């Protein structure tokens, strides 16, 4: 997505725009999955019932899967559990899905759906794609559940260590530290004890593209490790910031698949049975824009020669289908026992046919492929693409599961080339760590034509609901929904209901519209997507009524209003910049409180028939706001709803911090977070700021977070939401902070790297805070 400029008020001698740059918040997912299939690497495929029928995981085309069909042509509605929308019963799922809570709700006489079920499209597709006739909702993938449960080893979900060994702290993605030296009472005394500037930054004004540094520092092996957007690893003394060593991948600094040079840090692995005197028993990994994954000895910074080809794995070797662009490995791999699990990123919105999504597991010391998992059914793999995993994953080693946040298929805003069910697209999918087989999967957007990539690692949490201990998982989304399911089975914790959503307006050829979408009943959505957002009167006044005029020309029937060629297009709230981004949800296991930051951003999408698109843009290209979706009959534009001054047309707040009681799903507190800023001018904190990045929580009862446009690090009281401390950094912190203990002292580290999604500021700063001695 594009830059979002949110200029604000003209005051004094100047106008005060605050720039929210919405660049592609979806981080240009693109993936490729080749089926490398070495002998050691079984290639698990889509299956509706992998758990009960492992053989079926060999690439079962969903539309051909009988259980994807439902014998009931008109879905019954169920009891309305949420205010506005009628509920539609989930079409009969695969056989293990009988416990789907939504379907247990008593039915009402509510019409099945007020939205026209696109029978014509469906039947056309069915005949064209040889879809099972009974499947009246092609494109609506049923939940794939693991009702048999799963045995658990004695590896705890929350490790006892105080290390911060991954992008989200630990494999569970809780971003939780058991440290309590810094407390609500003394956090106000926190001071910066050292900072470090990598020198690896570019504002894009020279030969190099600008840098986007969305990294979390890793603390392990008594060392703080960082990766940079110039694809270097730097090892630092955690107490002083003194450099121990650095490793340069010598990667070409070219933004091959992204609008910027991006990095999301490094990953760390150590052998459970280290061999005395041997190198690379502890390894740090970094990926590059051209998909080389480097492994470096964590003690010395020397390349691990046994890893891949002399220390680097060429992930792009598996890019063999629709390889319109190379892979990029910007997110460090997810480390899970003896597995490095990695996805990849690529160009977004450019092509209809793109490399198909895949996830690979490789040996941490040799890079030998252990297994791979493809997200797209084989039958349509070549006619679409992506549905990749470009962000971090989470891991429950006790259950031997890795959880994938899977992105949407290509092209992002038209789905006429992929009308069949793609069960793993825009889903959370749990894989067996040893085999890569699907254990369960939940699709959060059916037939996604809004680029609602699942963009953050699900947060794994043990919660007590109605007296029952539940091994749960919370999946935050761009839509502002928080889906909570049992992480062993994939079943709902609180009912997730299929509700009717709008169909198209008839302007888009070949499109299919999923008649229903899943809506969680609890927790409540982080923002109200049911109603058209209100126009912000100040922006409208300054814009001489342009905001009202724009909103009047935008159609909106709720969040799932399909893209159109009519008028100015369709209003999307939220779209790819909104909701929750890759910082995800933090969780305090002691109080069972979840913490999440969210953005309220209004955008609008318009599709253009190919000829109109070419006339509009002077040819397919990457003009401001326009993307070609080459190979599709429609190009598209995505704009932010702004007035002429760049002020947001919608009412603040623009971002919030929210705490949830996970014993009942209720909101404990919520408040605007940060200050929007443009051209230096800060807006009142009551308006909040769009956020990219996420929180960390500690046993000391604190939330640490950057994430805001004003480039500040902040600490909040976990119980009340009161802001207790802040400090100014160089650029927005667009990942999670790290919390660690070194020589008896607790530290909090923020990487201030900036991201053009928020504003055009870049940084190369690592700032570390502690209490005074």
């Amino acid at each position, binding site marked *: 997505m594009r830059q979002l400029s949110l200029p604000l*008020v003209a*005051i*004094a*001698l*100047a106008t*005060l725009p605050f720039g929210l740059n919405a660049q592609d918040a979806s981080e240009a997912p693109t993936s490729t999955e080749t089926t490398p299939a070495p002998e050691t690497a079984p290639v698990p495929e889509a299956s509706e019932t992998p758990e009960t029928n492992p053989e079926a995981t060999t690439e079962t085309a969903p539309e051909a899967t009988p259980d994807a069909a439902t014998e009931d042509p008109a879905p019954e509605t169920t009891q309305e559990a949420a205010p506005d929308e009628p509920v539609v019963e989930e079409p009969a799922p695969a056989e293990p899905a009988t416990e789907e809570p939504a379907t247990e709700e008593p039915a009402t006489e509510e019409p099945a759906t007020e939205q026209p079920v696109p029978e014509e499209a469906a039947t056309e597709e069915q005949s064209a794609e040889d879809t099972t006739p009974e499947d009246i909702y092609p494109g609506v993938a049923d939940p794939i559940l693991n009702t048999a449960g799963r045995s658990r080893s004695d590896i705890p979900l929350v490790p006892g260590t105080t290390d911060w060994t991954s992008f989200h702290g630990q494999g569970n993605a809780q971003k939780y530290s058991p440290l309590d030296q810094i407390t609500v009472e003394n956090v106000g005394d926190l001071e910066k004890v050292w900072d470090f500037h990598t020198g690896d930054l570019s504002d894009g004004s020279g030969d190099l593209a600008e840098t986007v540094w969305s990294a979390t520092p890793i603390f392990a092996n008594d060392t703080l490790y960082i990766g940079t957007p110039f694809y270097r690893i730097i090892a630092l003394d955690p107490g002083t910031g003194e450099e121990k060593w650095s490793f340069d991948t010598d990667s070409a600094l070219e933004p091959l698949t992204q609008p910027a040079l991006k990095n999301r840090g490094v990953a760390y692995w150590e052998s459970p049975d280290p061999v005395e005197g041997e190198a690379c028993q502890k390894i740090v990994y970094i990926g590059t824009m051209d998909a080389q994954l480097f492994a470096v000895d964590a003690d010395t910074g020397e390349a691990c020669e046994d890893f891949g080809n002399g220390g680097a794995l060429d992930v792009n070797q598996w890019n063999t289908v629709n390889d319109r662009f190379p892979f990029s490995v910007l997110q460090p791999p997810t480390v899970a026992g003896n597995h490095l699990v990695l996805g990849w990123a690529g160009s977004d919105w450019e092509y209809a046919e793109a490399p198909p999504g895949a996830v690979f597991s490789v040996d941490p010391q040799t890079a030998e492929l252990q297994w791979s998992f493809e997200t797209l059914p084989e039958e349509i793999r070549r006619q679409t693409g992506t549905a990749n995993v470009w962000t971090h994953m989470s891991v429950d080693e006790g259950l031997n599961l890795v959880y994938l946040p899977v992105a949407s298929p290509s092209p992002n805003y038209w789905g006429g080339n992929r009308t069949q069910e793609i069960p793993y697209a825009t889903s959370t999918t749990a894989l067996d760590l040893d085999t890569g087989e699907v254990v369960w999967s939940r699709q959060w957007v059916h037939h996604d034509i809004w680029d609602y990539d699942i963009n953050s690692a699900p947060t794994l949490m043990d919660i007590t609901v109605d007296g029952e201990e539940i091994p749960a998982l919370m999946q935050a989304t761009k839509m502002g929904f928080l889906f909570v399911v049992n992480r062993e089975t994939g079943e709902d914790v609180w009912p997730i209901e299929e509700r009717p959503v709008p169909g198209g307006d008839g302007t888009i050829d070949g499109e299919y519209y999923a008649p229903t979408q899943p809506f969680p009943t609890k927790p409540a959505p982080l923002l109200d997507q049911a109603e058209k957002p209100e126009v912000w009167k100040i922006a409208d006044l300054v814009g001489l009524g342009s905001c009202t005029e724009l909103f009047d020309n935008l159609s909106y029937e709720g969040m799932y209003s399909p893209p159109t060629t009519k008028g100015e297009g369709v209003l999307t709230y939220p779209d790819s910049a909104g909701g929750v981004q890759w910082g995800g949800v933090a969780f305090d296991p002691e109080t069972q409180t979840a913490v999440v930051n969210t953005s309220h951003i209004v955008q609008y999408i318009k599709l253009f028939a190919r000829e109109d698109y070419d006339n509009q843009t002077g040819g397919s290209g990457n003009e401001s706001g326009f993307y070609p979706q080459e190979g599709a009959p429609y190009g598209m534009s995505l704009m932010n709803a702004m007035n002429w001054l760049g002020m947001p047309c919608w009412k603040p707040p623009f971002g919030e911090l929210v705490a949830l009681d996970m014993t009942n799903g209720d909101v404990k507190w919520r408040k605007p977070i940060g200050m929007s*800023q443009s*051209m*230096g*001018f*800060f*807006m009142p904190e009551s308006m909040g700021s769009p956020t990219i990045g996420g929180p960390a929580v500690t046993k000391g009862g604190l939330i640490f977070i950057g994430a805001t446009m*004003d*480039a*500040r690090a902040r600490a909040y009281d976990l119980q009340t939401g009161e802001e207790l401390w802040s400090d*100014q*950094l*160089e650029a927005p912190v667009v990942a999670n902070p790290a919390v660690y203990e070194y020589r008896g002292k607790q530290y909090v580290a923020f990487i201030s790297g900036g991201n053009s999604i928020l504003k055009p500021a870049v940084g190369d700063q690592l700032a570390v805070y502690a209490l005074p001695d």
Partner: protein
Amino acid sequence: MSQSSRPGTARTIVIVAGALGGLAVSIYNYATPLTGVEGTFGAGLVILACVLLILGAFVIQFSPPGILRGIFRFLVGLGAVLTALAAYFLHEWWLIVAMAITLAGLAFDIAQSRTASSGAIA
């Protein structure tokens, strides 16, 4: 004709002092890392505003009484208020103080002129 002020009286010295102080503050905020506004358009704009206020003070000082001086007094006053407002949104708190001094200086200038004028009539 009434005398505008006593020759040699630096009526606008407080305006200049306030604006100079504001200039120093705004340059510091523009040039210093981690002020939150380093290198930004807004921080640059208030530097320019302070320079203009200083120039305005000199114009007031040396212009003959009449409409021109009145216009410049109005502009300096408006500029100081708007610069203070900008400073509020830039979180440049000391710049607000400087603008308050500038406005006080403007009041002093006006008072001085009136005193001089009254004295001449008397």
